[in-house]
């Protein structure tokens, strides 16, 4: 009897088309991320601030009616298991109207297919592989529901390289070294291969000499051998490109051993405040690329930075761009006047939003990477932050890059022990 009643209810729910056909009382956004890891936690934090602000202001206006946003936690465990991530999205697909989040590209590619199957808009907030958006160009009708709020790894390479150029210039000026030497220290992971190759081939064009590439495991717990080898190579700059836990160890041991080479580039883990504590302050003067910093990227940046810091005693991570993602979705829903995915996609494509992370405009259909975040001067640039005393960070790039310099940014500072070492050596 009970089984019969349950089956009947289930059948009538499915016949009604599930959630899509239900009377909309709230906009349900699934925040997909590895919730036990820093990235998922920060996906959630960013989205929750946006939810709080929007709901406090009355919610999303849909058909003249204000309704709240409800966030649903979708724990993807994507750093450990692609299949876990797929199952998590599959299970949540009937319970949410939209997805935001995800960090690991390998998992995002699999999750994307599930979200597309259910025609759910998936706003990527951390997975940076170009293929995710190249798919939109290849099969627009299937993948058009995908948008990205972070710049892709192609543009990240450009950011890192532009910053490297700045640092090389400062090394030349302050230390009088005509041809600075660069050591590459990158994860032994596929995503870092193109970046390593790009630096190796392009650095000589900037008057730099590449002395070698060191590729320890992304989870290496000791990089003193690599750092000692880099010191022996007489490099003045270490170009890091690390995504794993190694980032903290590297920052700590680099500072502890006073390696006489500036540590620049990108370390995902160095974007959050706990990096300072984990390195015991030894990470001072190291830099990392991220989506936001304490500079006026837009009018919303500093207020968001301060709110986040006050609420979580932490700096916003690049994946906390879920904050802007929720706002972009809200605006598109309101313009469309519906939560129907196809209509919202059409409005998302018209997005021109000044968010906390900069200007949000998506590349149009016909581009190689449609729906990817538009990069460049006047659009979104990302930033490079440098750790300074007392665990503060400052934006050091862009610093007069193609005419872009954000209010509050400062010139990059070489670590004093690096300058002293090379001056004494001369």
């Amino acid at each position: 009897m009970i089984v019969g009643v349950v089956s009947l209810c289930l059948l009538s729910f499915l016949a009604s088309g599930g959630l899509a056909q239900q009377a909309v009382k709230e906009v349900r956004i699934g925040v997909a991320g590895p919730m036990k890891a820093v990235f998922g936690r920060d996906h959630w934090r960013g989205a929750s601030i946006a939810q709080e602000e929007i709901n406090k202001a009355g919610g999303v206006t849909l058909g003249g009616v204000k309704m709240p946003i409800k966030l649903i936690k979708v724990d993807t465990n994507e750093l450990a298991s692609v299949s876990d991530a797929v199952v998590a999205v599959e299970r949540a697909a009937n319970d949410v109207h939209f997805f935001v989040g995800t960090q690991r590209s390998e998992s995002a590619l699999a999750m994307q297919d599930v979200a597309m199957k259910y025609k759910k808009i998936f706003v990527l907030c951390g997975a940076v592989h170009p293929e995710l958006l190249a798919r939109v160009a290849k099969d627009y009708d299937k993948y058009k529901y995908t948008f990205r709020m972070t710049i892709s790894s192609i543009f990240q390479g450009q950011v890192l390289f532009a910053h490297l150029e700045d640092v090389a210039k400062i090394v030349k000026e302050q230390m009088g070294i005509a041809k600075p030497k660069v050591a590459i220290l990158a994860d032994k992971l596929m995503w870092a291969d193109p970046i390593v190759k790009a630096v190796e081939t392009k650095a000589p064009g900037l008057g730099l000499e590449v002395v070698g590439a060191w590729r320890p495991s992304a989870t290496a717990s000791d990089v003193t051998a690599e750092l000692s080898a880099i010191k022996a190579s007489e490099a003045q700059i270490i170009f890091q490109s690390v995504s794993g836990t190694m980032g903290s160890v590297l920052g700590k041991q680099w500072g502890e051993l006073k390696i006489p080479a500036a540590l620049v580039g990108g370390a995902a883990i160095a974007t959050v405040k706990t990096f300072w504590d984990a390195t015991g302050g030894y990470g001072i003067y190291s830099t990392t690329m991220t989506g936001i910093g304490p500079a006026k990227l837009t009018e919303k940046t500093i207020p968001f930075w301060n709110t986040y810091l006050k609420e979580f005693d932490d700096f916003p991570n690049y994946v906390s761009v879920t904050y802007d993602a929720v706002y972009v979705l809200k605006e598109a829903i309101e313009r469309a006047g519906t939560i129907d995915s196809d209509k919202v996609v059409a409005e998302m494509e018209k997005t021109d939003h000044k968010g906390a992370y900069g200007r949000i405009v998506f590349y149009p259909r016909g581009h190689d990477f449609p729906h990817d975040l538009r990069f460049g001067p006047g659009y979104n640039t990302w930033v490079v932050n440098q750790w300074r005393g007392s665990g503060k960070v400052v934006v050091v790039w862009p610093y007069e890059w193609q005419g872009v310099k954000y209010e509050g940014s400062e010139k990059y500072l070489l670590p004093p022990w690096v300058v002293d070492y090379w001056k004494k050596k001369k």
Partner: protein
Amino acid sequence: MMQVLIISIVLGTVYAVLALGFSLIWGAARIVNLAYTSFYMLAAYFFYVFCSLVHLNIFVSAILAIGVASFVGVATYKFVLEPIRSHETVVILISIASAFFFEECILSIFGSDFRRVPPFISGYQELFGVRVVNQHFLAFGVSIALILSLWLFLSRSRVGIAIRATSQDREIVNVMGINEKKLSLIAMCIGIGFVTISSIVVSPIYVVEPLMWVHPLIMVLAIVVLGECDCLASDGDCAIEKTRRNVWSLL
């Protein structure tokens, strides 16, 4: 090359201590304790709590951390693993499940943020042009001391000889009136003690995080199991002896 040599020697001794503790447990208690390195993680977190949160003296914190983590380790053996130790496959499953349980506990209490514990000796020394942090020297010294102590214990003391006898033939040991269960417990205490002491001297070099038990476990298994697979299929004394040989070759 010199830097690789120096760092390898330092790290090699630490892994040697971990591997000796693991094989001692296997040899005497016949338990493949995959939760072994989770006590390495727990000791580091207890050290972090006592030292960085409660702000106790660093040496007091170290002793407390070793004590509490060892207690958890021995209690896990006594109440979880010992009752099922005749079922080897189940022991493997339950021990790895215990490790995940401890990891989840740490995650739910401390989150996934990386933590740091202060070094016993800060600064670094330059050795043949290679910069080595002082804590590395301490870890090396403590590891060598532990290895020598274990060697003396197993070869000279009555209990040590009894543990070796137990690992060779448990039935005969029982017939001889030796309390094999008690000896297994002693071996377990020594093994867990080794892993927690290693953690305390090594964690200031690295960062403290919930997954820090995984890599050492892989290394330990590589030394003990993969290096000498036949040992597991044969006898425990073989495990102890061959691990000892592996450790010396590692050094």
